[in-house]
Structure formats: C-alpha cells, structure tokens
C-alpha cells in the first residue's frame, strides 16, 4: 500500500497552502492587465492602459498622497513611542511591567470598530476637535505602537547593557550614548518598525473610515469606488502596485527583524 511520507506530504502542504494564500490576491494584478472592466475568464487582450489612467486620475493620486503622508508621520511617531516603551521595559525594572505591557498591547486586540467608535466620541465630544487627517493619524499611531514596541523589545532584550555603561564611563552623556551606542545597535529593529508601521497605517481602513473628515485616505477612497465597475480597473492597477511595493517593504522589514537577529 502507498504510505504517506513526510518528504512527500510536507512540500505538498507548503505548495497548496501558498497557492491558497496567494492565489486570490494575485488575481488583482492579473486582471489589471486585462482589457475589460469585468473580471471574468477568458481574459481579453493584454493592456497597460489602466496604469496610464490610474496615473492621470487626480483624486486617486490625491488619496494616495494623503495616505503616504499619514503613514510616514504615523510610522515615525509610533516608532518613537514604541522605542521609549521598549527601552523602559527592557532596561529598567518597571513595577507592574506585565500589566503595562498588556495595556499598551490592547489596541491590537480590541476590534477596530470599537476603537473607531470610542475615538470618534473622544475627538468630537471630549476634545471638541474637527475630524481631519490628524485624527486619523493619531488613531493610527495608537494601533501601530504595539507593533513597534514588540519589534523593539525583541531587539533590545538581547542587548548587552555593558555597552551603554562603558559609554557612560568613557564620559558620554545620555544623548551621546543614545546617539552613538543604543540607536546604532537597535537600528535594524527601528527600520523594521518604521516600515511595518508605515504599512499598517497605509492599509488601515476602518479607523480612517470613522475618523476622516472631508479628505479620504486611499483605502477609504477605494472602498467608496468598489461598487462602481467603471472605476475598478484603476483600483486594480493601483492595488497591484500597492501589493508589489508592500511585499518588497515587508520583506525588507521582516529580514531586518528576523534575519539580522540570527547573525
């Protein structure tokens, strides 16, 4: 009788799984080169005109630019917040560390819809703010801090404290020590955190949906177009670009985070 052996089954599972994981997503780039606004097989002629239309679509490009701005600011702010928290938790014996850690991780666990609803009432009723891109950015910082803190804690935990002590002994002050010892050593994780927070903010939909005023971020704008077939090719083209760029950014970030840690 034929017996299932690990060397046969294992690669099979891997291939099947990757196919299911990537298959549906890869349909988007596939149809973005199709000369039809309907996404059906058999496909029509090959065309790259949707990419041309995408570039010329000013409101789409405007939304893209809005999302990039928010994502850049969010990634910088949340990496700073994450770094401070990670440093405090790894370097000092903070009382109640595990409770504080769990608390800062909460935004990752709570469903976004509850975060969105509560931040909406917080910004408008408690702070009396208008909904702008700033409110979106602030909410994105909240959900990016846990990622950033996790990544940086992993890096700072394996950190030789003597290096900082030596720097102080050699007459450096706190800022110089940070600048010339701590930061360079934590750099891979800092870069990984910047990249991943950028992606999280750039892709985030629900909080932006709740908290954006009259200017939409790219996911919110794309969502509003999804029900109109005539806009779909442009979204497919832009979506394909986003998929490619984010795959590259994430690979770099993950490599910085995991690959570097092993060496």
């Amino acid at each position, binding site marked *: 009788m034929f017996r299932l052996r690990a060397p046969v089954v294992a690669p099979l599972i891997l291939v099947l799984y990757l196919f299911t994981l990537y298959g549906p*997503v890869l349909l988007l780039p596939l149809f973005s080169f199709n000369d039809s606004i309907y996404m059906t097989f058999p496909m029509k002629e090959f065309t790259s005109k949707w990419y041309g239309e995408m570039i010329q679509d000013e409101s789409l490009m405007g939304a893209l630019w809005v999302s990039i701005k928010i994502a850049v600011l969010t990634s910088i702010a949340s990496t700073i917040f994450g770094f401070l928290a990670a440093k405090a938790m790894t370097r*000092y014996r*903070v009382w109640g560390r595990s409770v504080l850690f769990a608390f800062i991780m909460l935004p990752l666990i709570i469903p976004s819809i509850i975060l969105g609803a509560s931040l909406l009432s*917080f910004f408008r009723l408690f702070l009396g703010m208008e909904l702008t891109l700033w409110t979106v950015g602030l909410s994105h910082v909240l959900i990016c801090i846990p990622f950033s803190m996790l990544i940086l804690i992993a890096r700072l935990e394996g950190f030789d404290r003597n290096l900082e002590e030596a720097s102080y002994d050699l007459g450096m002050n706190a800022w110089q020590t940070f600048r010339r010892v701590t930061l360079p050593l934590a750099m891979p994780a800092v870069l990984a955190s910047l990249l991943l927070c950028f992606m*999280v903010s750039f892709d985030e939909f629900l909080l932006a949906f709740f908290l954006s005023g009259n200017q939409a971020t790219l*996911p919110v704008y794309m969502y509003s177009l999804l029900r109109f077939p005539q806009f779909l090719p442009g979204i497919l083209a832009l979506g394909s670009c986003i998929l490619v760029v984010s795959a590259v950014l994430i690979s770099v970030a993950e490599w910085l985070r995991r690959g570097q840690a092993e060496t």
Partner: protein
Amino acid sequence: MVNSGKPPGQRPMTPRPMGLGPRFRRLWHANENLRGYVLLMPTLLFVVAMLLVSMVTLVVQSFWGSVGADSAIQYTLSNYTIFLEPKGEMYRVLLARSLWMSLLITVMVVLFCYPIAYVLAFHVRKHKIFWLIVITIPFWTSYLLRVFSWKVILQHDGVLNSVLVGLGFIDEPLDIFLHNRSAVIVTLTHAWAAFAILPIYVSLEKIDRSLLEAAIDLGDGFMRRFWRITLPLSMPGVLGAVLLLFIRNVGDYVTPALVGGISGTMLGNIIVSLFTDMSNEPLAAAVSIVMMVTITLVVCVFVLLIGGRKRLRGVT
C-alpha cells in the same frame, strides 16, 4: 576589620541644602524604577488618553437620549434596554450571529493553519526565515484588497462562475457564492490565515525534540505522538491565536459589507450604519459597548474553562 564608614581624619559629611533640581537629579540616579517610568510615560499617557479616556466617553455617550448634543443632554438607559425589548430583536440576533460566525472562523483558521505551521516547524530545515517571510507577507498587505479579491472570485460575473461555465460544469452563472454567510466565513478565514500561523509555529518550534524521540523509542506512532505530545505542547500558541482571532472577528465590518449580503450581516455593520445613515450615535455607542462586554465575558469564560481543565489534569 569592619569598615566604620567614615574614614578617620575627615570631617563628618553634613548634607548640603539642595534645590529642587539637584534633589530630583539624585532621586533620578538612585531610583531605577523612576527612570523607567519617566521613559515609559509619553507612550503610556498617549495610550491612556486614546484608549481609556475614549472608552469612558463612549460609555458616557451610550447613556445619552437620542436627541444629541445640541439640546440639553438627557441621560437614559433606553439604549441598553432596547436589547431586551421585542423591537431590539435585530440586535440580539446580530450579536449572536457575530459571535457564532467568529467562532466558526476561528476554528477554521486554526484547522487551516496548523498543518502549515507544523510543516514549517518540523519539516522545513533550510531557509526557514525565507518561508516565514513569504507566509507573513499577506498578513501585512492591504486587508481591503484581500477581501475585495474574494468578491472578484465569488460574484455573479466573477472568476469562479466564469471558470465553472467555461469548464461546462454549469450552464448559467450561479448567485449562490456571494452575499451569504459562507462567503464571509471563507473570506475572513483566508484573511486571518497568515496571522495565526506565527504563534502556532513559535510554540511548535519550542517543543523539545527529545520528547518526540523518546516517544518513538517507546513505540508510539505518529498519531499517538501528535495527540499526546505535539498538540498539548503547542496549545499556548493555538490558544493565543484563538483568543485574538475570536475577539477581532466579532467586530468585523469590511468583509460582511463587501461579501456578506443580508444573511451575512454582522453587528459591526449595524454599528456603522447607526453612526452614519441613522445618525443615532448614542445607540451605536451602546451597541459597541454591549458587544465589547459580551466578547469580554465569552473570553473570560473560555479562559476559566481552560484554567479549570488544566487544574483538573494537574490533580489527576
């Protein structure tokens, strides 16, 4: 000899009067805890303001009468009592459905992810990092686009129908794929798959291989080894994934909105439409809070059950 503390021939030290600055500086250098807290403070304050304070405002808002902010605010319980009234049936049904669907999705994700995490942990020896990255990339890429790709597959003039018609299995495109509960479950299972692998993989990777070797030496087959060693020891990762998936999926909005139709509508959709179309924000706040409290209760019961079982096993 015992050190007397004061070297002989020196004047005893008298504490100099200190200003606030130096006093703080001394405390700063003496107290590690304090330095830790000062470093932590900006992040902590930010999260407290954005999370705790905002939750409190949401709770306060949920007790408002539906008149809104312009007229004098009246506090009422009616946003909560509606859950018990006959006309609140929709909310009860949607809450129960959201919990049930989230449970199904969670189970499906774990069943889907366990084999691949197992293969990664035990059978992939070369380029592990590469495979890990390949598998986690989809988790970080646009959730909206991933959900949308399922709509493209399942819709009336979509990929699945055109393939089935093209192969001659069906004559006319079918409408049974989109706008129902199974579409939501399939889409969310797929969307969260990349996420659940990591915790399961990590706990599988930690398993001491000598335990498995011992079991082989003692004559256990694959299934026995799996049931008695691998599965129990990987439970921490599985449970971590289960809790997070369950909590996050109860409140999903995008997937039911895009592929769910009427039968796949979940509580998140009603919250959003209360906020936008019906602009009854106090009721929306109350529904959000009921949802959060229910999730918390379910999770607590679950954790207690797990803890209770562990204690039982520890006794026997």
